[in-house]
């Protein structure tokens, strides 16, 4: 490749505009991607990032504007056209077939899948890709058994296997553990170096942007508001460009006197889908006014623990007491009525219904409520008022409460779920990855909301893979490793290094368990 070819953009977009009923999602966007560069696209929730990526991938047709690849105008009628031109995309919300194996997912849907009857050969090819970029994943596992991070890798492998030269990653790290994030970043850098794979990168995690990207394009309300070289940027300056004001990166910690126990868990044992014991006898108590942070690399039993607490998974043994009521054998609805408020990690399939309007989505946590349900008749008017109020209070970017859930941007959907659960003023808040996919402003807002809930006397169980998030607001930190707590550490003694070591399976004294 000559020097000249190298500096010519591999992909350019000119004047991309896309309108949806009630919003202009992209408004005359221009930008270029150069070979071998990692180009981050930043913006608040609803700024139009996903829409832009969907257009580049042929999922949407722009209302106006053109796309050029190597200087040549292209028109993508469908993702197949985009794949043909070497574009690969990993979506904000995973699109794998859960019941298939990893390898099947990677190979199926390949443009030449018809000719690849030889799975073994395909396996070798994929294995080579893995080695090249440092991915580790069990090819024979079924996708539903994978952690978010593993699914992410599978998505990337799938795109690479289809011959992607330009890889679009939408929020690649929002559901990843720090370790997985590290691995992913290394692979991304390896790709950028080796293959001249070009990687536009969208993320709300500013330190990551600063660390690995070469250039940044910032969107606000569908328009490009800044283009900069990453080395000239700081976390503060990026946040300011995105939000249009200064963002404080601190959450006010507030100490309150803990009250009576809200959640008491005794010797809980829970089985995983794969059949082994995912939670092997944990006991803990969360009191009124406490935030209990569960720190751990995903796949160490957090999911199963949370599901058992929410009534979605039968424990093998043990006891769960919620606000003085033994709920161990009660169905989910009874737990909600007893004061549970559960913010699930999977906002697309569990936390919301894409074909429901926002009002109907809010009703998911209210349809059983006395005030919204009189003699079996739902009060939709009241639900609508409530939805409008939540949209206002949580600053959800949407044309209105009658919009379908699937038409919201990822972060805004997350805000609706959070708003809905917290507005019930639950006794126990289970917040599973509450700030995933939220922009800096919204993350700050959510953490403040959790603190507010605690100050108002709720008990909060916070599950996060972001250690900073846990350390910032928790009163207790419980590192979980292979289904056991490595200890329950009061905030004052929870130093970063110590918790990190414990998450890797050592107790507080540094002895391997």
């Amino acid at each position, binding site marked *: 490749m000559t020097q000249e070819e190298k500096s010519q953009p591999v992909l350019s977009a000119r004047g991309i505009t896309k309108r949806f009923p009630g919003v202009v999602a992209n408004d005359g966007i221009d930008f270029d991607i150069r070979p071998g560069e990692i180009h981050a696209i930043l913006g608040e929730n609803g700024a139009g990032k996903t829409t832009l990526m969907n257009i580049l991938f042929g999922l949407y047709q722009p209302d106006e504007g053109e796309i050029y690849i190597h200087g040549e105008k292209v028109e993508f009628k469908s993702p197949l056209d985009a794949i043909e031109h070497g574009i690969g995309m990993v979506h904000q919300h995973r699109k794998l077939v859960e019941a298939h194996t990893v390898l099947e997912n990677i190979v199926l849907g390949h443009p030449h899948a018809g000719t690849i009857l030889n799975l073994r050969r395909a396996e070798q090819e994929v294995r080579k890709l893995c080695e090249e970029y440092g991915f580790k994943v069990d090819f024979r596992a079924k996708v539903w058994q994978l952690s978010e991070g593993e699914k992410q890798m599978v998505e990337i492998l799938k795109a690479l296997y289809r011959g992607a030269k330009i890889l679009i990653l939408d929020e690649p790290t929002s559901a990843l553990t720090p370790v997985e994030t590290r691995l992913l970043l290394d692979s991304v850098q390896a790709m950028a170096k080796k293959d001249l794979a070009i990687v536009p990168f969208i993320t709300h995690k500013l330190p990551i942007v600063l660390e690995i990207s070469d250039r940044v394009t910032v969107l606000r309300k569908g328009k490009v508001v800044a283009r900069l070289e990453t080395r000239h940027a700081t976390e503060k300056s990026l946040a300011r460009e995105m939000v249009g004001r200064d963002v404080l990166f601190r959450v006010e910690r507030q100490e309150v006197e803990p009250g009576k126990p809200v959640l008491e868990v005794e010797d809980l044992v829970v089985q995983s889908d794969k059949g082994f014991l995912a939670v092997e006898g944990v006991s803990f108590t969360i009191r009124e006014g406490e935030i209990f942070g569960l720190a751990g690399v995903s796949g160490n039993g957090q999911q199963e623990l949370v599901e058992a607490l929410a009534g979605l998974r039968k424990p093998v043994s043990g006891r769960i007491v919620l606000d003085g009521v033994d709920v161990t054998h009660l169905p989910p*609805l009874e737990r*909600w009525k007893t004061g549970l408020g559960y913010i699930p990690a999977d906002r697309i399939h569990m936390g919301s219904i894409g074909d*429901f309007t926002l009002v109907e989505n809010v009703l*998911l946590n209210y349809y059983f409520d006395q005030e919204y349900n009189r003699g079996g008749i739902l009060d939709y008017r009241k639900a609508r008022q409530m939805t409008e109020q939540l949209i206002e209070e949580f600053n959800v970017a949407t044309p209105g409460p009658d919009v379908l859930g699937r038409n919201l941007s990822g972060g805004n959907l997350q805000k609706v779920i959070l708003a809905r659960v917290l507005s019930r003023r639950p006794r126990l808040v289970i917040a599973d990855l509450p700030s995933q996919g939220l922009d800096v402003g919204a993350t700050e807002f959510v953490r403040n909301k959790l603190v507010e809930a605690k100050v108002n006397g709720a008990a909060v169980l916070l599950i996060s893979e972001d250690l900073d998030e846990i350390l910032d607001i928790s009163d207790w930190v419980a590192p979980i490793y292979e289904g056991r707590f490595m200890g329950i550490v009061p905030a004052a003694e929870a130093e970063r290094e110590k918790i990190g070591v414990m998450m890797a399976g050592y107790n507080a004294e540094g002895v391997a368990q």
Partner: protein
Amino acid sequence: MKIGKNEFKLEKRTSLSGWQATSIAVLAVLMTLFLFGFIFLQAGISPGMAYREIFSYAFANKHGLPLTLNRFIFLLFTTYAFILPARAGLWNIGMTGQMYAGALSAFAVLYAFGAQQSKSLELSAGLVIPLMVLASMLGGLVIGAIAGYFKGKFDTNEIVLTMMLNFILFWLVSFMIKEGGLFMNPGGRGESFELPPSVYAPLIGGVPFTGLVAVLIGFALEFLFDRTQLGYQIKAFGKSPRAARYAGIDTFKIPFMVFLLGGAIAGLAGYHYFAAVPGVYKIARNYGQFGDLAFYGIICGLISQSNPLASMPVALLFGGLSIGGRFVQGKLHMAFGVDYALLGVLMITLVAFQFFYRYRIVRVSLDEEDGHA
């Protein structure tokens, strides 16, 4: 595709209003009539004349209209039986069996009152008719509940299950009405005993009262889905069982309830056709044909996008075309079953037009583009 200075492109719809859905369905019907016109031409018959005959007989003739309305009512019940589970994301194709169960149960009430002994038995209409109606609902309900129970409890495939129940009920009807069966006609003939005139269903303006019931149920279902807690739970379960479970919706109760209620309504179809339609008043030997007609409830349900109110005009159209088609076939001495052929073509066209529920055609003027694509 290029036509003159315009280029037409397909684009995925981001939304579809009820109004757009209706206009697509209307277009599909017009398309069907157009296509079927060629079949008439082939047979040497003027399509204009044939359609005039079909529609005037089905909707404006004093003999044809009641027949149309009776089919309409029958189809409406079986459509509802499809719609209820469909809203919960489940396929009920057992309306035939549920309908048979309804018919058998209604006749069981008559049997209990000794009606198979004598056609001229004087029974108290005020007592026996409500009992028959209730029994027919109960019969359909039980058959529906079996499917719902297994779906809810063990996640059995409801299509296979309801299909099997259809076969069982078909043979059960045969067993009951043929030689030696409990409900056999004293004169033999392979059909059931006849209804005593004292318990003929009351008519409202020449139409059995079941017509009113069918329309009322339509509005009741609309209300159920739009306003009630149960309807909300059904919709949530239908759109996302996982989210429904998260929200505490009972994942046994919902499948069970929709099949149970759907079965009960299908049972009414059995009462309607065999015990309320003037001129029938028995389970005739060709009862299997009505079983086949019941399946059109699936088509009506699909076309109306599981909307109970929208299903009314659809069922009326299907009922009218089948009656009118049968009529022209006889009148013009055509060699094939115009009624089912017409329904068949309509069905295929409507299904093909479903495509436009998901895509729309947009026009791009080539003047604005700079040529190379």
